[in-house]
């Protein structure tokens, strides 16, 4: 199935998909500079699936934007293995193009030859199980289908690192479950590294090999968990629930600290 999709394997000399070293970020706020991210150090290994977990406003999107190169850190350094692709909570598909043409635009900007684009776009649509939706307009697709096209478009960039910023947060629970299965399958099939941001603890545990908990104000790495539960997992699985409870306790502790100050 979908064997034609290239494996985005690691380049020889690079032992990371992303290397974040001592990164801090502050914004000019109404009361002077506000420190949002404080001394973040994090590696994403080639082919690894890492979820970044934290309360709303803790700086998850800020960190992802920095890794994507959309903004520069105030201090520290970020290195990635090639330009990462980025998926947002909103699908960000271009409404003036069809589903297929959205994917082809990414291919074109990535330098794929004109004659190969159509076939490659169809392959990617098949990968996200949307074969036959090439000519669909964005507004004709459901929320889940839009996110799958957005995923196909992100994969079209052939990046070794896929950054995802709460991509399923706006979907209903049934659709979200299905997309978890799909993402896990596609990650295994393509070998792409994923840095996945969420505020949903169970989602983080359901998907990741490693969960990184971010504290708030400023955002610091509070703790990390390696998730040994074999895939395919389900969000209802007992081991998933168990670990989720442990992580939730820690997360609540982090949040409580702010109430005491």
């Amino acid at each position, binding site marked *: 199935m979908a064997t034609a999709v290239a494996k985005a394997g690691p380049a020889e000399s690079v032992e990371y998909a992303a290397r974040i070293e001592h990164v801090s970020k502050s914004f000019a706020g109404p009361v002077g500079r506000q420190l949002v991210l404080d001394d973040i150090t994090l590696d994403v290994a080639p082919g690894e699936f890492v979820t970044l977990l934290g309360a709303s406003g803790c700086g998850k999107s800020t960190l992802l934007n920095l890794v994507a190169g*959309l903004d520069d850190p105030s201090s520290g350094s970020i290195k990635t293995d090639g*330009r990462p692709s980025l998926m947002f909570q909103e699908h960000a598909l271009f409404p*003036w193009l069809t589903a297929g043409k959205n994917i082809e635009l990414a291919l074109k900007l990535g330098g794929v030859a004109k004659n190969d684009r159509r076939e490659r776009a169809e392959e990617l649509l098949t990968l996200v*199980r949307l074969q036959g939706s090439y000519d669909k307009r*964005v507004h004709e697709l459901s*929320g*889940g*289908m839009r996110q799958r096209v957005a995923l196909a478009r992100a994969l079209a960039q052939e990046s070794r690192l896929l950054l995802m910023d709460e991509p399923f947060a706006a979907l209903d629970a049934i659709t979200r479950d299905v997309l978890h299965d*799909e993402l896990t399958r596609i990650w295994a099939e393509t070998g792409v590294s994923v840095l996945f941001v969420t505020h949903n603890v169970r989602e983080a545990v359901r998907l990741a090999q490693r969960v990184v908990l971010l504290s708030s104000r400023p955002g610091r790495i509070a703790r990390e968990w390696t998730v040994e539960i074999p895939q395919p997992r389900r969000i209802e699985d007992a081991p998933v629930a168990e670990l989720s409870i442990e992580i939730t306790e820690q997360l609540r502790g982090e949040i409580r600290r702010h109430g005491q100050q």
Partner: protein
Amino acid sequence: MASSDTKSGLTDTRQARSDGNLQTAGLEAGLDALENVATTRTPFSVTFRAKILPPLIATGVVLLVWQALITFNVVTDPTKLPSPGDVATEFKDAWLEGKLLGYIWTSVERGLLGFLLALAIGTPLGLIVARVKFVRAAIGPVLSGLQSLPSVAWVPPAVLWLGLNNSMMYAVILLGAVPSIANGLVSGIDQVPPLFLRAGRTMGATGWKGAWHIVLPASLPGYLAGLKQGWAFSWRSLMAAEIIASSPDLGIGLGALLENGRNASSMPMIFEAIFLILFVGIAVDLLVFSPLERRVLRSRGLLVKS
């Protein structure tokens, strides 16, 4: 399926995994089908009843009232209000003399040429104003202010600058239409969602590539609205110019026809000219701009079906 050399335990997990995959696929297909919105084209009879019939009836009512005013001697002076029949005769005579299409074409040719010229100037101007901060600060306010200046105000200076000729007409059209077109593009570009720009940047669409693949298509609805308004302004400016600057060398366009009607105190001729001006304005909008705008909006799902 599993190849023969795999151990049975491994085959089992693979089997389970591929079963799970199949189930997900089926589930997903079901979800997609449930969310699928059926899009059907409205049949012509419905469009006819909803969109075409009402204006036809309205026109018929106006004609009836008009005729009634004359039949029942409410208005008795034909130099103030000619009968519909008189105006129809005026049209027929102009048609039989072979002049009717000439009047229309003289004005339409000027209007379209002027509009295309305005397009060629207004588009790059809008791009520069939208993208270059200094230019925007310098001429942005003037450009949007110019939209509220009635373009007939440009006719006297244009006559003194260029004389009574076609160039003067084009100058008036340009001064009327260029600000609309440029402003439409500027507001179209301003309204491009930042999310699209960020998505484009992560895909490598920066600089000119970003402008071509993201900014321009995203701003198309605003640009089209500007074009539509630009045409309306072109047409109005042109009529103003033709009425004020009618001269035998310029040929008789619709504005000149109106002015001739006034000089000859011929109410039917004046009505003829007014109807033609209205007709051309509506026809261009109905045949060119509205379909274009509808197509763009519909393809983006921005047009709510009524």
